């Protein structure tokens, strides 16, 4: 009479592509098979993941189970997202995931301050994704996690992984040391474009120095959570006006867990400035909104929940139904369940695009 997981599932008409699934190591030791003895000792002695003083602590305490779904802790121990069988039962099978895009946060080196250790972590987490996840579960696909501050290493790691069909995008942190349009990051974009891999941007917990809001450091986690949107806006404006897309005309960017409803207003504002003041940026040949329309995709979770749900499809009309990627953020607390989170009407064609086909096109999935 006691069932540990929800056993009632709604009818899911089409298989979905989930563009945001977080696999997690049970502990740092999961990465040791993919690291040299020198760095295993480093991890044991100094701890992983250091852009801030309190290793392993979150900057902003989160209201729900350290930011996780409270029902996603594996019975056998370890953090949510560390048990493939549980992920299958609770998520992949339960909601009908056809393809799941892994976004390996935390130990992938993009938040690591020690530059040598960052490269070791990046390589190890990519090996770990390949062997411990994708090889065991063919519905899962990996993203090449790289430490964006070390562009030379990023190029090398991207080129290495691009030959492997398990990897479908490049993941860098939007909480980088400088705004992502700066030229220090351009070698990463060149490599991604050359290899035909989109760049996935997903908010990171730890910053490269800049506060997560332009007003300064937030007080509460609620502010930090909202900062995912504004933080991403700063990076997009930087990439557009600094000319990234003039130089890399085939570069594709997926914005993950950063919202999308704000995009039309931001594009209108950028267009207005561009029409009046374009002489400051003579390298730009097109209106910002045209660049956005061609180069950006948006993952849905956490989907906004307006009082009148019909407002959302109006905004999607402005952005384009071909630009949205469905995502759940499993196993995090603000998970969107594909059976329940959409509260507005869609045509069957729109539904297919949103849940599946846009992601297939962007990532080149069968």
């Amino acid at each position, binding site marked *: *009479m*006691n*069932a*540990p*997981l*929800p*056993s*009632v599932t709604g009818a899911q008409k089409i298989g979905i592509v989930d563009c945001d699934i977080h696999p997690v190591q049970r502990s740092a030791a999961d990465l040791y098979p993919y690291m040299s003895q020198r760095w295993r000792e480093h991890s044991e002695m100094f701890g992983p993941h250091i852009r801030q003083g309190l290793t392993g602590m979150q900057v902003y305490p989160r*209201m*729900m*189970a350290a930011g996780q*779904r*409270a*029902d*996603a802790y594996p019975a056998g121990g370890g953090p949510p997202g560390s048990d493939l069988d549980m992920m299958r039962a609770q998520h992949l099978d339960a909601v009908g995931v056809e393809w799941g895009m892994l976004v390996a946060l935390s130990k992938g080196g993009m938040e690591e301050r020690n530059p040598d250790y960052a490269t070791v972590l990046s390589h190890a987490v990519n090996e770990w994704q390949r062997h411990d996840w994708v090889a065991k579960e063919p519905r899962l696909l990996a993203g090449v996690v790289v430490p964006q501050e070390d562009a030379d290493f990023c190029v090398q790691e991207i080129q290495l992984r691009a030959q492997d069909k398990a990897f479908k995008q490049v993941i860098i942190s939007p909480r980088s040391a400088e705004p992502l349009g700066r030229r220090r990051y351009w070698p990463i974009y060149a490599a991604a474009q050359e290899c035909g891999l989109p760049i996935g941007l997903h908010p990171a917990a730890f910053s490269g120095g800049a506060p997560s809001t332009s007003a300064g450091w937030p007080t509460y986690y609620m502010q930090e959570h909202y900062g995912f949107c504004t933080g991403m806006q700063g990076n997009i404006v930087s990439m557009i006006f600094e000319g990234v897309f003039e130089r890399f005309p085939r570069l594709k960017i997926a914005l993950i867990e950063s919202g999308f409803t704000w995009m039309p207003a931001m594009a209108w504002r950028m267009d207005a400035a561009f029409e009046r003041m374009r002489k400051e940026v003579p390298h730009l040949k097109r209106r910002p909104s045209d660049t956005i329309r061609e180069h950006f995709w948006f993952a849905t979770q956490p989907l906004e929940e307006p009082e009148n749900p019909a407002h959302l499809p109006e905004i999607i009309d402005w952005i384009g139904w071909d630009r949205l990627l469905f995502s759940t953020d499993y196993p995090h*607390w*603000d*998970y*969107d*369940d594909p*059976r*329940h*989170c959409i509260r507005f009407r869609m045509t069957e064609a729109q539904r297919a695009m949103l849940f599946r086909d846009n992601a297939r096109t962007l990532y080149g999935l069968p």
Partner: protein
Amino acid sequence: MSKSRFVVARTSDVAPGTSLRVNAGGRDIALFNIAGAFFALGDRCPHESGSLCAGKIVGFAEADEPGKYRLVRDGEFVRCPWHGWEFDIRTGKSWCDPEKSRVRAYQTGVTSGSDLVEGPYVAETFKVSVEENYVVVEI
């Protein structure tokens, strides 16, 4: 419509301060024990259908002004394991939006095994022993 009464658990199955997922008449129900009193809610959050009995049992943080807060009614609210929506275990109502956001609350009672043998109860899932007490949910 007349209600049916379902025997869903032994009282000893649900310790004070905990919850248990049970099934009665095909419905998933979250059963709670608050200091010896039993309460039953539909085990489905009205937001995105998270399972409430997997949620944390909490109190309510009340504040008159920033920085001055207190915890009241500790152990009488359940927080959905997904997005943290909270419901009063006694009524199924959300504190923030009691009219629109609520889960179904069911009547419960405790009955001895010897009474149960007489009926009209439905014990779907296990055998009733006359020596023990049982939680009964009305649907």
